[in-house]
């Protein structure tokens, strides 16, 4: 089939489908076994330097911040990041110097809060290289192709734009309609971190609210680390099995971390900690501030419980719960500037 055009973006995370099948057969256990471990052990075991990392959720919604902080604490290097709906997660990881390369659907921004000083500085100075562009739909379809065990998926976007020129997609003539069609390659991240409200010790996980692209991403991941608000008995999962978004055999590690998405939002449980995110956005304007931030909130704390105490403890967490449940109004330091 003749390729009409192709992007110059680097093809990351792709494997020949037969190679992937063989890898799955040899490496992904279908055994129902207890996968509970500490976040430190999970990162040590599954995040080698140079890995392609993707994060579940939506950049600052239902993000495994416990995983993100542990990657930083262990000073992982030369990671490539899947910049899928990347917001606070990627800003922190890039700011900490863990990421050299990123494929971008959305990154370097904080949505309503404005742009991200730390990760923008990294990309504008060349410290972090953008290896390819794509769109949000295309990223999750790359994961869809991967979960289906296909080499690519056809799509009808990106066509005619520079987003396609800088992507790893190719354009061919569709043999059915005769029209040009975009083929987006499968993407299998080496390791994915996902935060969920509940799962059992085997990894059977349920998600409340929008699943975003975690259904596809969990199945595309070569290694999947779940952090969870709580580990529930297996019987609770099996009582409503239609709620299970991720069955156990996709999961490699289960880590119980209450409030593990802080300062990001956890639907129905707690709102964004705007005070904390605001502090990061303010401090990350300078390299000294970035260092100070990580010294205080990552290297300077014993564990996630210690960190939660430092950011305001139960009083703060109770307030964030009220805001999330629309029982208290939100406030944010970045709002004051807009007056």
């Amino acid at each position, binding site marked *: 089939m003749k390729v009409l055009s192709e992007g110059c973006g680097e093809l990351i995370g792709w494997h020949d489908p037969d190679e992937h099948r063989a890898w799955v057969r040899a490496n992904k256990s279908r055994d129902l076994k207890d996968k509970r471990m500490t976040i430190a052990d999970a990162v040590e075991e599954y995040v080698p330097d140079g890995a392609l990392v993707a994060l579940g959720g939506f950049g600052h919604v239902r993000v495994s911040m416990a995983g993100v902080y542990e990657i930083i604490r262990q000073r992982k290097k030369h990671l490539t990041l899947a910049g899928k709906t990347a917001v606070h997660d990627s800003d922190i990881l890039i700011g900490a110097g863990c990421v050299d390369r990123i494929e971008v659907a959305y990154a*370097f921004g904080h949505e309503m809060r404005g742009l991200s000083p730390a990760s923008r500085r990294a990309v504008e100075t060349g410290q972090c290289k953008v290896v390819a562009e794509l769109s949000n739909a295309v990223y999750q379809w790359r994961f869809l192709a991967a979960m289906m065990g296909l080499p690519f998926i056809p799509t009808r976007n990106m066509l005619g734009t520079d987003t396609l020129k800088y992507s790893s997609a190719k354009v061919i003539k569709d043999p059915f309609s005769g*029209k040009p069609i975009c083929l987006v390659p499968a993407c299998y991240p080496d390791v994915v971190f996902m935060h969920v409200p509940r799962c059992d010790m085997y990894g059977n996980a349920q998600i409340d609210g929008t699943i*975003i692209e975690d259904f596809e991403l969990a199945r595309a991941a070569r290694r999947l680390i779940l952090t969870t608000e709580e580990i529930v008995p297996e019987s609770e999962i099996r009582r409503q099995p239609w709620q299970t978004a991720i069955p156990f055999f996709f999961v490699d590690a289960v880590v119980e971390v209450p409030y593990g998405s802080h300062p990001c939002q956890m*639907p129905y449980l707690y709102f964004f900690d705007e005070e904390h995110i605001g502090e990061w956005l303010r401090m990350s304007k300078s390299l000294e501030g970035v260092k100070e931030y990580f010294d205080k909130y990552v290297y300077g704390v014993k564990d996630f419980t210690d960190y939660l105490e430092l950011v305001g403890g139960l009083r703060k967490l109770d307030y964030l719960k009220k805001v999330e449940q629309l029982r208290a109004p*939100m406030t944010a330091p970045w*709002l004051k500037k807009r007056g």
Partner: protein
Amino acid sequence: MKADYTATELLATVASKVLEDGKSVFVGTGLPMIASMLAQRTHAPNLLIIFEAGGIGPRVPVLPISVGDSRTFHEAAAASTMHDVMSLSQAGYVDYGFLGAAMIDWYGNINTTVIGEHDHPKVRLPGSGGANDVGSFCWRTILLMRQEKRRFLKKVDFITTPGYLTGPGAREKAGLPAGAGPYRVITQLGLYDFDEATKRLKLLAVHPGVTIEQIQDNSEFEILIPDHVGTTEPPTPEERRLLREIDPTGMAIGK
């Protein structure tokens, strides 16, 4: 006389009026959300709002911070997936797409990726996000942006999201879904559409007190000016009250 409304309020009210009751709209962060929520509270109670993270038909209580925020599926018809909403958009279910833009050219092509060279950026912007998807799949795309000479450009540094690309027929030739494309552009100066024959940006109406000279002075490219140019309606006190209700903290609307 000083107007008793802000430019942002005007932008939001003019944008909301473009939307129709009983249609669907794919909504981006910030002002597009406000305009859609305002339309629901005024002339379009059955406007179906769709968010890229999977929120379908929510009753959005207050302005969300993120298009993935739990406010985007509050009392929703469905809390679904990105694959679902992007697929249904590709399949033709979405009438309007609502985007903010940093820079555009006269065919409505949008840059939100980079200022300067891609590999040596002067300013790195967030990239496509869902914008390329919205601009590719939705029947009619509405762009909300600030109009300045450095934003209305003869050529954008990077086409992140397709407008009419190089002119009439170019979208279809590239393989994009047929019959879709940019529909309106709304800035702090006026309301624009695209000329049927040339697919170039054309003035439809100016905001109260804005002159044709201001329209042209704030664009690097020539804007088509028809014989009859309308004037937009300023926000009513009731609309302004609703905007405060939608965005009580002034996150997007200001204080």
